[in-house]
């Protein structure tokens, strides 16, 4: 599957900005399931972006200026090819072997970053009691499938009910949220069950009627012992396939925020985003 992705952000400041630095984590990555073919960027302040790799090795555009401005617009166009896969096409280890790996010290040390509770993925004791638990007879994959459905049913999709600071705990209390909240909720339960899991940001194929295709989307990758990282999208109760274009992963939203900036101004900002993804003919 080939996609053309356009990411656009407009930031209008009520007061002049004297100095600014922006980091944009929006470029599709290249890995075993997708290849970035082409990209191009433009911005309204006419500074050339530099590209650098973040902690997890993903490319970030950085733009800095010391010239005054009132509007910062950034537009990226990228083309990416995604391999077609059947997400069910793999062989699981027997549950007891999976369990032995999950419980081994070396596995926990190698994957500790995705097992560690963060501000977003920490659960209160009362929420811990209510969440599903991996029982002995179940394979990790089947448990994660159930978890995907559980999160999907437990949370109602509702924009503006949460913000970028909402934690998994709060999402379980509220029972509603957006893709980022579904992802944090999924991650918090998976980690509680000692299954390494990471937050993923990216884009969705708009032709499939999936929730989240008008914005940057968020989903989860969980590590299945003996198999590898598998993508789960609790917002849509689906497994990740060729309809998903990955940008980056991290321990939680904070590692994947599409735009971060430090801006010297006395005024306020109004921000707009636009994401357009179109499927291209091969």
């Amino acid at each position, binding site marked *: 599957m080939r996609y053309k992705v356009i990411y656009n952000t407009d930031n209008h400041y009520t007061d002049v900005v004297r*100095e600014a*630095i922006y*980091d944009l984590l929006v470029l599709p990555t290249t890995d075993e399931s997708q290849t970035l073919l082409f990209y191009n960027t433009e911005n309204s302040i006419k500074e050339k972006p*530099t590209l*650098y*790799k*973040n*902690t997890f090795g993903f490319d*970030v555009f*950085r733009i*800095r200026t*010391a010239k005054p401005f009132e509007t910062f617009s950034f537009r990226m166009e990228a083309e990416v090819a995604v391999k077609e896969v059947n997400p069910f096409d793999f062989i699981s280890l027997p549950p007891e072997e999976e369990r032995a790996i999950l419980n081994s*010290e*070396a596995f*926990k*040390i*190698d994957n*500790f*970053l995705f097992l*560690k509770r963060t501000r977003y993925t920490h659960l209160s004791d009362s929420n811990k009691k209510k969440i599903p638990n991996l029982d002995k007879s179940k394979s990790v994959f089947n448990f994660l499938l159930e978890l995907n459905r559980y999160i999907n049913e437990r949370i109602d999709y509702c924009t503006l009910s949460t913000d970028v600071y909402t934690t998994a705990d709060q999402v379980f209390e509220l029972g509603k949220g957006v893709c980022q909240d579904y992802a944090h909720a999924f991650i918090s339960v998976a980690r509680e069950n000692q299954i390494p899991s990471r937050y993923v940001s990216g884009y969705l194929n708009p032709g499939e009627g999936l929730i989240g295709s008008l914005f940057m989307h968020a989903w989860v990758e969980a590590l299945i012992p003996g198999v590898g990282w598998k993508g789960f999208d609790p917002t849509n109760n689906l497994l990740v396939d060729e309809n998903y274009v990955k940008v980056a992963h991290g*321990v939680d939203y904070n590692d994947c925020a599409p735009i*971060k*900036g*430090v801006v010297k101004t006395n005024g306020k900002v109004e921000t707009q985003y636009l994401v357009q993804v179109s499927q291209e003919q091969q």
Partner: protein
Amino acid sequence: MFNRTGKPKKHYQKVANFFSKMSKDEFLELNNHTKISFMYQGVTFTVYSEKEGIERIFPFDLFPRIITQREWEKIERGLVQRITALNLFLHDIYHDKKILKDRVIPYDLVLESPHYNKEMINLEPPGGVYTHVSGIDIIRHKDGEFYVLEDNLRSPSGVSYVLSNRSTMKKVLPNIFFHYEVSSVSDYPQQLLAMLKSVAPEGVDEPTCVVLTPGIYNSAYYEHTFLAHNMGVELVEGRDMFVDNNFVYMKTIYGPQKVDVIYRRVDDSFLDPLVFKPESLLGVPGIMAAYRAGNVTIVNAPGTGVADDKAIYAYVPQMIRYYLKEEPVLNNVPTYICDIEEDFNYVMDNMEKLVIKPVDESGGYGILIGAMATKEEIETYKNKIRRNRRKYIAQPIMTLSTHPTFIEESGKFEPRHIDLRTFLLYGKDFKYPLKGGLTRVALKKGSLIVNSSQGGGSKDTWVME
């Protein structure tokens, strides 16, 4: 300073004679000179607990502490050994994690530490060093042996007082000072600069070094200005620098100037608002990416705090054996880790003899001194330990050695407890233990607390040539 018969030890005789010949009035006059000298030099510290920042003179005691060459030689060997192992440990836990996989240290103790900094994973700091400037606190126990009390590996303060104490001493008591062959401390700033240059990013021949301060409200601001001034480098705040094209620049009246090495006295979490606390104004936005790209050196490296936590401290002797295949030269204070069955049982049976500390608290919070606690307090505390054994360590009560110190109220020299903060610079093929240190004195009778913020003072520390 006294031997078993109560006479001054050989190396203290001249000092003791000198002071014994002096009348009380003569001494008081000398003491006043000293205070004025500190005032003129501007050697002060700020006490945070006051509502408004109040700068004070750091109380200074004229009676020097003398360390013989033989004693010092061992301390120095021990410090270098310790820092070498700690640097290897820091590299290991941000790369292969061998020491954790080999079960020498419990992995969760390290990886769950709030100071474990994920931005440092797989990052190669220029020069290969993590903790370049360390301040290791040492005490002498009643058994005559030196023990390491604490490793300060992030941003240890106090070296400016060592240098100011010395210059005051030379001014006020020249006749006694020059009777001794005292090792010089005055080249510390130049050695610090040489160390900073040794860890400059690769390919930079004439590195530009700066001192990064959080600003005038920081308690150690005096020291930041002192070091920058004496090294002849710029003292900067975060707002004086910016990152462009993954390089760090400072703003000067001649335009931007590239910065290669930053001796930062700003905490990790304030270094880069794009990565850590977004609301922080003390750091430089974008600096972590420039660091990861190898374009700038940060001294000390972020994430070193994981190696100076109280529980990790307990494992430093094991680190020395693991990485260096050597026995530790300096002792640790024996530490019982409640998470270990045997230690736990010992702690439960011997609470009265021990000081029990939570591993993740600082400032003395949550500490129980067994000998001073009631039965109920001990029982309550035992339950706390049972509920979360990983959180507690215990140590026997150490008796800090005492040293004659002039006490203004009594107008006499009286014994007071002391410790020693040492300073070690560690760069690329570069090791410099400062021959001296900050001897801190508990000015209150019987007190074991030597911290300046709690009414402690200091002494000039003479290491014999």
